[in-house]
């Protein structure tokens, strides 16, 4: 190849050659080759230089310049490959096994550090020497040219070309022989150094914290520029730092060898690893403190300092070194970093800072998103974590990640058969609250809430739990976050007040200027927003609305509340309803007065009852009737209280016939008569199966107190005259069906008061237990007092549950459909609504009653009509808004 290239280039020279000159040329060529070899093998010794230069001159004069260069480079490459590169790599043979690197051993670290330093130094000196040789060649060639013709000198371009060719050669030789573990070695090295540096900075910071406390505030305000200034400040001691300088040397050497990007990758990944570790260490499982600021602070304090020092070092050193060749990564330190002292932070450093912060945000965000479920579980306490997450998301914009991951967590951990409805609801509320912070528009909340709502709709007790949670404070979830005694409603109300205050401000300021400002602040909805859900201003997150959204309509919620309220009120033996009144007032605020009308009447009934009760007692006292006459069994009118209800406004109440003890019965009718006297022409209808009876059982050796239902009281009172009853007789005496009696009497059997035995006839027989059998069930001794509400035990409810009502309504609806010829009724209603626009239920009812007298006649009750209309609403023929029916358009 050499031959051919030379013949190609120097064809004209060959022509003019004779035998002698060829021999001469051959000699000097051989001599040149020897000199080159000697030079390369000389190991820094330049004694052959003059010899070499002479040979070059001769060959040059023969026109073999390019041949010389070619050969010289080739031989240099060979030498470098043989000596430099292989020797260099041999240093790292010990680290072939990655396991060695993983060992966190200080000695090992030190050793590696030394090895790297030494190897790089060696290689660099080799390279430097070779560069010197190259320079020599260039000089020689230069001189030749000058002799040949005065004008033509060895141009800079050519010289650069030569050097870059050499660089490329070095790089390719090294790359070609690059052992696979070298990047790991580098990364490991940087990691070790960074950790060392970080530890050093930590102690430094501690020392300086005292000094910086005062101007800490200023730093926050003046932002990054100030931070950088501060960095400058500290660079003084950092720049002189030996550690940094060592690292700088390593990086510079690597750069000179063409490993720019590899070195950068190595220290970048080391920094990222460290940053990640730091974020994990700071954030971890701690949600009660905000960590973002401290992470940012750490970024400023450690990696940025390091980079700054490094870039500064490289920048300084670069000014007197030849510029590193090889391709630059976009993040490679820019030469401009040299000018950082002029005040503007070096571009490279800013880029690094952005990159590091983004990475920190992303890491923290991932960490928080993964733990979002736990964070939300202890939401009010974990709000700093939420705040952090919000900032991270603003930066990274990976909201979808949050939604996806959180939905997955919900499905896996919350929406399972094992979770109680109350817990799910609590989590739902916390989720709303937490996500409201992150995303005030509620777009992502919509997405996250949907699976929960969907799931809750499938549970039967959802409405009940919602009402309980709304009205009863912590809602039977003692393990929940401890705002006990404070119902969700109260909380909502507080929020509401705050919101109202702020919205009031808005109204006041709504002049042109404000409008303009508002318009300027407009931001588009996030891309994930569902355009069907209306504009963002309308999508203000309303927790109550979202909860009602689970059920579908507030009417159902109100209805359920009414049933629960009725249950609660009927079981009250005093007239204390303060908390209920408060709750009702709150509910009125949210659901409107009209929908809470019935509940209000119910509460009013209690208040009236109390008044009437006192009234009646007062009249008795006035008449001063001889009490003992009535008090046959120790009960006088004094001991009788009554809750008098307006039954039209209460939910349907289960009315079971019951024979109560004669004396009590007598009392009740006395009471009713008194009522009639006071409130003519109103009269009382007793619901004898309802109420609460406090009674005391006296045995020879003990006295037991119970608080039971009237039925239980009647049962036990039967045993006063007769200690043993068959179930059939007893049922007849008490006036209830046998199966109900058998069910209810277990209360007394369980208490150890009665004993059950089965007779031959198959009839059950109950006997009074005279002597207390110590079976631990009663757990009460002489004079002991046991207070138990029997109702709770058998789960009987005096009020028909909403489900029962619904079932009834549905059957009514079905039957109405058949009997009434639905179309006719529907036609009537449609016609009415067309004329009047909208009508309330009562009005429809009354109008139908008045005008619909043909065939078939309208003979339905208000409730039946309501369920019929409900059916029409469900079929989407009508619409129900605020108690008014409309035609669906």
């Amino acid at each position: 190849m050499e031959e051919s290239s030379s013949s190609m280039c120097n064809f004209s020279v060959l022509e003019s050659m004779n035998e002698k000159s060829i021999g001469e040329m051959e000699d000097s060529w051989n001599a040149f080759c020897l000199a080159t070899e000697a030079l390369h093998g000389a190991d820094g010794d330049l004694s052959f230089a003059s010899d070499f230069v002479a040979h070059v001159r001769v060959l040059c004069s023969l026109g073999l310049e390019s041949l010389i260069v070619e050969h010289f480079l080739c031989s240099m490459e060979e030498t470098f490959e043989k000596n430099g590169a292989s020797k260099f790599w041999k240093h790292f043979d010990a680290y072939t096994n990655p396991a060695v690197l993983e060992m966190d051993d200080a000695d090992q670290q030190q050793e590696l550090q030394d090895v790297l330093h030494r190897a790089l130094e060696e290689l660099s000196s080799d390279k430097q020497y070779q560069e010197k040789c190259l320079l020599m060649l260039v000089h020689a060639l230069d001189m030749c040219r000058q002799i040949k013709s005065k004008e033509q000198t060895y141009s800079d371009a050519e010289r650069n070309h030569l050097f870059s060719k050499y660089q490329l050669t070095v790089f390719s030789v090294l790359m070609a022989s690059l052992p696979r573990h070298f990047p790991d070695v580098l990364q490991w090295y940087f990691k070790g150094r960074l950790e060392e540096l970080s530890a050093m900075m930590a102690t430094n910071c501690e020392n300086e914290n005292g000094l910086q406390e005062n101007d800490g505030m200023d730093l926050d305000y003046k932002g990054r520029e100030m931070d950088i200034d501060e960095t400058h400040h500290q660079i003084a001691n950092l720049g002189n730092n030996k550690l940094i300088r060592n690292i700088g040397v390593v990086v510079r050497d690597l750069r000179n060898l063409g490993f720019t990007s590899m070195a950068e990758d190595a220290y970048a990944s080391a920094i990222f690893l460290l940053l990640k570790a730091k974020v994990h260490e700071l954030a971890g499982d701690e949600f009660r403190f905000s960590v973002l600021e401290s992470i940012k602070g750490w970024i400023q304090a450690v990696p940025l300092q390091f980079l700054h020092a490094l870039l500064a070092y490289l920048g300084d050193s670069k000014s007197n070194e030849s510029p590193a060749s090889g391709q630059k990564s976009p993040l490679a330190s820019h030469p401009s970093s040299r000018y950082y002292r002029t005040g503007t932070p070096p571009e490279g450093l800013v880029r690094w800072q952005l990159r590091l912060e983004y990475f920190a945000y992303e890491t923290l965000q991932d960490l928080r998103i993964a733990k979002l479920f736990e964070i939300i579980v202890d939401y009010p306490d974990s709000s700093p974590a939420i705040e952090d997450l919000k900032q991270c998301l603003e930066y990274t914009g990976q909201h979808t990640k949050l939604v996806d991951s959180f939905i997955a967590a919900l499905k896996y951990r919350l929406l399972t058969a094992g979770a109680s409805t109350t817990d799910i609801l609590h989590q739902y509320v916390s989720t709303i609250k937490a996500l409201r912070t992150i995303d005030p528009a509620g777009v992502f909340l919509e997405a996250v809430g949907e699976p929960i709502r969907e799931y809750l709709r499938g549970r039967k007790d959802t409405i009940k739990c919602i009402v309980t949670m709304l009205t009863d404070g912590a809602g039977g979830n003692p393990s929940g976050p401890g705002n006990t005694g404070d119902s969700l409603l109260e909380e909502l109300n507080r929020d509401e007040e705050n919101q109202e205050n702020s919205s009031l401000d808005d109204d006041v300021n709504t002049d042109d200027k404000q409008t303009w400002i508002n318009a300027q602040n407009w931001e588009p909805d996030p891309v994930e927003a569902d355009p069907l859900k209306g504009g963002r201003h309308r999508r203000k997150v309303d927790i109550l609305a979202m909860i009602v959204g689970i059920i579908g309509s507030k009417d159902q919620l109100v209805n359920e509340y009414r049933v629960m309220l009725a249950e609660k009120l009927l079981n009250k033996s005093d007239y204390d309803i303060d908390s209920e009144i408060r709750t009702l007032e709150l509910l009125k605020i949210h659901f409107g007065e009209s929908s809470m009308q019935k509940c209000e009447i119910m509460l009013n009934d209690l208040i009236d009852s109390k008044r009437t009760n006192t009234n009646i007692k007062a009249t008795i006292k006035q008449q001063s009737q001889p009490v003992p006459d009535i008090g046959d069994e120790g009960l006088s009118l004094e001991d009788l209280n009554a809750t008098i209800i307006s039954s039209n406004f209460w939910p349907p109440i289960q009315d079971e016939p019951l024979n109560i003890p004669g004396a009590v019965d007598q009392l009740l009718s006395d009471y009713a008569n008194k009522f009639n006297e006071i409130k003519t022409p109103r009269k009382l209808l007793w619901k004898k199966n309802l109420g609460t009876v406090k009674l005391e059982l006296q045995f020879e050796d003990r006295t037991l107190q119970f608080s039971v239902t009237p039925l239980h009281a009647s049962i036990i009172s039967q045993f006063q005259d007769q200690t043993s009853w068959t179930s059939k007789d007893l049922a007849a005496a008490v006036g209830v069906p046998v199966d109900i009696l058998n069910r209810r009497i277990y209360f007394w059997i369980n208490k150890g008061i009665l004993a059950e035995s089965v007779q031959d006839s198959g009839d059950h027989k109950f006997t009074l237990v005279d002597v207390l059998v110590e079976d631990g069930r009663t757990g009460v001794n002489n004079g002991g007092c046991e207070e138990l509400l029997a109702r709770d035990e058998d789960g009987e409810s005096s009020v028909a549950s909403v489900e029962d009502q619904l079932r009834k309504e549905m059957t009514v609806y079905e039957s109405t459909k058949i009997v009434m010829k639905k179309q006719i009724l529907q036609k009537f209603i449609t016609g009415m609504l067309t004329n009047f626009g909208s009508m309330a239920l009562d009005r429809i009812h009354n109008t139908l009653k008045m005008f619909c007298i043909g065939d078939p006649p309208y003979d339905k009750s208000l409730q039946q009509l309501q369920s019929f209309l409900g059916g029409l609403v469900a079929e989407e023929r009508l619409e129900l808004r605020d108690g008014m029916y409309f035609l669906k358009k």
Partner: protein
Amino acid sequence: MAASASSTKVSTNSTASDFCRWHAVASWTWDAQDETCGICRMAFDGCCPDCKLPGDDCPLIWGSCNHAFHLHCILKWVNSQTPQAHCPMCRREWQFKG
């Protein structure tokens, strides 16, 4: 509790039960022949369309013809009928029952 002494006389055996306190539940109703008011067609036990609370706040009133109405309903009716009001049900001259 008050008459625990008297309870011994009832019991043939050593056991006695005392009702210390009986809290009963009743519903009230207007002692009228009809269920609903002839004017507003609302239940007597409910209240007239203008009222919110039933019972004392929205009482019934009987005319001399023995027809009952919500007080508010019949007053409205009487006031709108000049000079002489008639019972909406039987068209007799309306007079409040004393």
